[in-house]
């Protein structure tokens, strides 16, 4: 439907291009720049590349917003990537390198460039003094480029460019300090696990294209009638339900729509552009009715895509890489592993809403996996000591929320949570980075405490973000989370009852408040333990240096200082955004975000059935419930940690063996890594070795065996040569000599038997000859 009203907007390509130029400049010349002119030009190139992209993006979004609601779509076609088979009806494929800006990608672009720019600025402070400063900014810009490809991509292929590109940058940045073997391994793990997800993405894409090209061979009339049926359903829905009352109602003439929006399937058959795919309602409808492996065809497709999303967005079962990814510099964790890249999966599901909405099965899978991941990761977050690990599990958990949102059909709300999460989680991570820098690269919370006193700005912004994530109104976290909870509760999309999933999500919200405030208390309140320990050590001389083992050989901590302005200003901006972003879409108050997104998800509105007859009273009740459980979580922590924040875990709890066991399991992350290692990694390695052995010992052996076989034949013949041929001749010679010596003429040789055979044969032949003559 939107396909007809696309506007060309050639500046779109600048958005990814600017960071790419920045990355190239720093990549090729950064080393020399840094050596000759210091860090500043390097950092500035990167920051301006990013800011430039942000500026262009803002301009583009402004243009987009200026368009009528129904034609908010800007397209920039750069060139054709591939275009094969246009001379045949079957299997044609036309893919462009093209960018597409619509309300959905507009949100993403703004988040990516905006938050990204802040983090670039922050990094100038954070990475100060690193000898590979240039490399860091080059990678960071490259990441921006890839992420922008991902969100701006007009089709699957361009999206996949970005999809893999961000994976690559994630790999490079996690292993940024590559001389640490564990860091390098974490990068590799991230990439390989993501590849598993990519496999899912690819499988989904292949299945979808297969199905579409197969359907395209169906008679036109069939597709046409299916298309008309869908349009009719849309019109019926809008006429009768009109849930989004704030959207201006339109009157539809079903026939006119059918005539107008029915795409010529020959023209678009091979296009992988989202816009065109979305407009192929007839084909999709036919596909929806198909079965594959006993499941709905589109269910399979969507689940495959969702596997890809799981990989990128760290959902069960592919989440294990994200906590390890905290090996990278903290701005990286903020940008890639909290605000942007990991949300790509959510973005993809939202982008493919026209597919997911067609399959309740897939929606259920998305929601359930999201719910389980949210709870699972939140519980792991309870007892982690590394400040970044806690935040990492928190991210996994929050991503689960987003998936619950998009899975329950509230695509816009999932994206809204994505946005708010980007603000507060980036703030949290950057705050953590500030603390880590202040604590001279200490990350263990057991060494922290009392930072409130030393780092005012950090403390304040961190507190705001913590409250936000805990879901206290009217902050952004509350707004987005409550919208998701409400949509979960009333949704009828999923096969699993929405209320049950709501319960899980509600529980998770409590858990979130718990572990976040545990973190807050352990870090900011009380006295600083590392400082105390080093003072203690100083007092007792050098003998106790070994005691300082857990600080990883750092020098003793003598002072904690606030971070420079380049770091605190971004923190403040993000905290501010956390405070206000909720008002884009505050329950009962504003619906701006929903309205903005409406054109994107309009096509699926009639499919998404989150319309259980619950009234506003229940909605309010649920909101109160979610705030209540957050408060409970906070109170529990406050009771435990406010005074005694030194002990990582309440001693009383460990005293109880049952609680101790729980603690052990949670602290060890349910032993999932170990299980994977045993179940997947080691068998794979063993399999590869088995293959190599097979190659060497079987295949190559078979090949080499030909040589002995040949030689054997030769040897046999050699024997024949020696004993039969030469034997004959030698016998002759011998016989002659013997005759010469003894003048005896009669000697029979050993080849008599052979000769007898000849004799018999010849006589028989002679007689036969006589007979016939």
């Amino acid at each position, binding site marked *: 439907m939107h396909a007809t009203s696309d506007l060309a907007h050639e500046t779109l390509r600048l958005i990814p291009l600017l960071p790419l130029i920045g990355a190239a400049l720093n990549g090729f010349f950064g080393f020399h720049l840094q050596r000759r002119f210091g860090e500043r030009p390097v950092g500035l190139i990167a920051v301006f590349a990013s800011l430039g992209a942000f500026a262009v993006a803002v301009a583009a979004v402004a243009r987009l917003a200026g368009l009528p609601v129904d034609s908010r779509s800007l397209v920039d076609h750069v060139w054709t990537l591939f275009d094969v088979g246009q001379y045949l009806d079957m299997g044609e494929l036309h893919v462009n390198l093209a960018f597409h800006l619509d309300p959905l990608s507009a949100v993403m672009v703004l988040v990516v460039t905006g938050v990204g720019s802040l983090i670039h600025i922050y990094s100038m402070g954070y990475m100060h003094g690193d000898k590979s400063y240039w490399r860091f900014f080059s990678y960071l810009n490259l990441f921006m480029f890839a992420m922008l490809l991902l969100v701006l991509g007009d089709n699957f292929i361009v999206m996949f460019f970005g999809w893999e*590109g961000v994976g690559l940058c994630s790999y490079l940045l996690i292993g940024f300090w*590559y*001389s640490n073997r564990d860091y390098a391994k974490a990068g590799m793990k991230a990439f390989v696990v993501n590849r598993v997800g990519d496999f899912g993405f690819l499988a989904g894409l292949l299945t979808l294209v297969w199905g579409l090209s197969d359907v395209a061979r169906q008679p036109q009339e069939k597709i046409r009638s299916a298309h008309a049926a869908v349009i009719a359903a849309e019109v019926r829905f809008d006429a009768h339900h009109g849930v989004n009352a704030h959207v201006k109602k339109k009157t539809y003439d079903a026939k006119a729509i059918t005539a107008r929006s029915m795409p010529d399937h020959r023209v678009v058959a091979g296009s992988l552009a989202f816009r065109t795919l979305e407009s192929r309602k007839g084909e999709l409808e036919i596909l929806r009715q198909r079965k594959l492996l006993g499941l709905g065809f589109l269910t399979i497709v969507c689940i495959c895509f969702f596997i890809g999303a799981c990989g990128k967005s760290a959902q069960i079962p592919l989440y294990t890489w994200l906590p390890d990814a905290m090996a990278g510099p903290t701005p990286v964790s903020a940008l890639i592993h909290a605000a942007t890249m990991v949300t790509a999966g959510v973005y993809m599901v939202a982008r493919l809403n026209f597919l997911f909405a067609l399959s309740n099965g897939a929606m259920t899978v998305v929601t359930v996996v999201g719910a389980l991941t949210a709870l699972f990761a939140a519980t792991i977050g309870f007892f982690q000591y590394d400040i970044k690990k806690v935040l990492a599990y928190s991210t996994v958990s929050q991503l689960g929320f987003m998936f619950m949102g998009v899975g329950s059909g509230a695509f816009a709300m999932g994206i809204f949570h994505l946005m708010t999460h980007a603000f507060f989680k980036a703030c949290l991570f950057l705050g953590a980075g500030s603390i880590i820098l202040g604590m001279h690269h200490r990350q263990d919370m057991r060494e922290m405490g009392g930072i409130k006193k030393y780092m005012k700005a950090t403390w304040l912004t961190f507190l705001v973000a913590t409250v936000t994530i805990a879901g206290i109104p009217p902050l952004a976290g509350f707004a987005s989370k409550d919208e998701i909870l409400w949509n979960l509760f009333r949704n009828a999309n999923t096969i699993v009852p929405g209320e049950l999933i709501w319960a899980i999500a509600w529980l998770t919200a409590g858990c979130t408040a718990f572990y976040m405030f545990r973190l807050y208390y352990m870090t900011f309140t009380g006295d600083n333990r590392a400082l105390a320990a080093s003072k203690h050590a100083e007092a007792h001389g050098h003998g106790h240096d070994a005691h300082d083992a857990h600080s990883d050989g750092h020098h003793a901590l003598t002072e904690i200082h606030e971070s420079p302005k380049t770091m605190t200003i971004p923190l403040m901006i993000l905290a501010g955004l956390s405070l206000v972003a909720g008002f884009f879409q505050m329950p009962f108050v504003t619906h701006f975000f929903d309205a903005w997104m409406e054109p994107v998800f309009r096509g699926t509105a009639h499919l998404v059935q989150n319309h259980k007859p619950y009234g506003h009273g229940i909605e309010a009740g649920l909101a109160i419930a979610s705030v209540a459980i957050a408060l409970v979580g906070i109170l529990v922590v406050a009771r435990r940690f406010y005074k005694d924040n030194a002990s990582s875990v309440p001693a009383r709890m460990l005293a109880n063996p049952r609680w101790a066991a729980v603690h052990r399991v949670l602290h060890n992350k349910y032993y999932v890594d170990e299980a994977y290692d045993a179940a997947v990694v080691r068998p794979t390695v063993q399999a*590869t070795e088995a293959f190599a052995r097979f190659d060497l010992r079987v295949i190559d052996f078979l090949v080499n065996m030909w040589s002995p076989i040949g030689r054997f034949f030769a040897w046999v013949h050699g024997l024949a040569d020696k004993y039969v041929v030469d034997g004959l001749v030698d016998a002759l010679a011998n016989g002659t000599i013997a005759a010469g010596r003894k003048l005896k003429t009669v000697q029979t040789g050993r080849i008599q038997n052979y000769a007898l055979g000849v004799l018999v044969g010849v006589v028989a032949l002679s007689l036969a000859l006589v007979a016939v003559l």
Partner: protein
Amino acid sequence: MDFLNEHLLSIMVFAPVVGMAVIWLVAKSDNVVKWIAAVATAVPLVLAVYLFNTYDRKAEVDPTLSLSPAKIDEVRSKNQKAIIDYAMKYNAWAAEVRRRGEDAAALRLEGDEKGNVVGIPAETVRAWYQSTASHDPAKWDKRHGLQFVERAVWFNVQIAGLSWAKFNVEYFVGVDGTSIAMILLTALISFICIFASWENIKKHIKGYFCMFLLLETGMMGVFCALDFFLFFIFWDVMLLPMYFLIGVWGGPRKEYAAIKFFLYTFAGGVLMLLAMIAIYYGSQSTSFDPRYGQPFFKLADGSLVQHTFNLMDLAYANSWSTASLLGMDFAKVIWVALFIGFAIKIPMFPFHTWLPDAHVEAPTAISVILAGILLKMGTYGIFRMNFPLFAEATKWASGAMVVFGAINILYGAFCAMAQKDLKKLVAYSSISHMGFCLLGMAAVTPAGMNGAMFQMFNHGCITAMLFLLVGVIYDRVHHRQIEGFGGLASKMPVYTAFTGFAFFAAMGLPGLSGFISEALVFLGAFQEFQLATVLSAIGIIITAAYLLWTIQRMFLGPVTDRVLAYEKEGHLHEINLREVGTLAPLAVMVIVFGFYPAPVLDLFKSGMQGLTTLVASSTGIMPNVVLAAVGG
């Protein structure tokens, strides 16, 4: 310039061998030898780039000219039934004359003038000629996707007593898009490899470069030849220099590797030879001449012949005279024979074991040539022979091809992961990647075939980089054991960057050219073979795993004591300018074609169009445009 345009391909093919002659006869000092070799390879490179630029990508291909023979027969027979009736009458008369013992040769000559006597009105003959004019087999040109054609009768041996049944071979070279991609690759990699051998080859320098140039002529010839016999000659010409290049300048087990390579390839060649002869005698033109009472092919000099080696004739103007061979389907038997011949070169499981040995023992530049070009000949051969000549058999065998493709991908990847020797790892990765070509072409969908061709090109660039990089580190420390390194990134950052780049390219990272081809292959293959394609797609996980694991072990982590020792001994200097110079062009191509593959993909269009139409029409799917054109 006209001369250049008319003989471009010949100059390209024979420039290296001229260089070889000059080296052999003239060059005295090693440096002169090297520079002559560089010039001799630069000439084809310049011409290849010229070719790449001037090739008319927009040339219209006449869809009717790439019809399957069966279809042509069908259409023809409708219009020309009458002519054939006349011709049969003529034949009967001719047989009668022959029985009476008159000289057969004279009879045929008379037949020319006596057309009317035996009852064929002259007008009919003229009309018939006009009807065949649109399909004049003597002209293969742009309408068939061919450009820069050079065609002459090489030899036309008369078989005694049968003045028109000739044994003919043509010097027929020409290019379509596929060939150009391969030619460009060959020229570039050969040129690069001269410089990759610059300092590494220390003994018998003259012999080395002579063999190298001879090899290049063979490779160029294979990609240009459009006559099967010519193709075969060039194919086998490569064998010998390769044998020596591995056997003389190779590593410790060079004899074993060289002999293994030689025997494998020769065995493949022998199969191809048999198939080639069978094809020759099985060929039967779809053009029919009542004067001769037999179908004929037309040679470049206009003489008519019964059989031909001309690949274009065989593909587009031919219907096999034999339906069966020893009770089996003729096309299928020959298809399999040809396929095995080519599969050895690819190399396809289970004919692959020569590859790791040959690679490990060969000097760097030769490994590069092997992986970058020679392997492509297998797939190129399948495109050039199996597909157009036996379209139906191709369809019949595509299932098996897919299975082998999937096995190649997975098997190669698994084996690569377990390798301890870096070069062997790269060799196995080649096996894995060539599986994509098989997979793509087997699907016989436009996407799959384009993908397979593009994969040939891309893998050529990428794997060349990989082998060059292996050579760089080997030149420094004289071993290639992955375990022997660790933390190299701190000591050789630029080398690390290049290796990382090449590895990611091999992984098929989007934005690098390998991705486009792999994606096309997957998209194309999945249309036809879902399970095998999905299984193959698992290969991308394994590939990432083993390549990253290798990076991890060699480059990342703390610097190991051994590497420190190398550094102390002064071996571990950073990659030098010459080496960067060999890698950079390839890297640039990988990036450019990763984002902007059109220049190469457009090349394939003209050639691919005919091929796909042919295969598709043989399976009963007749594109409407074609049907309209032939009036069917």
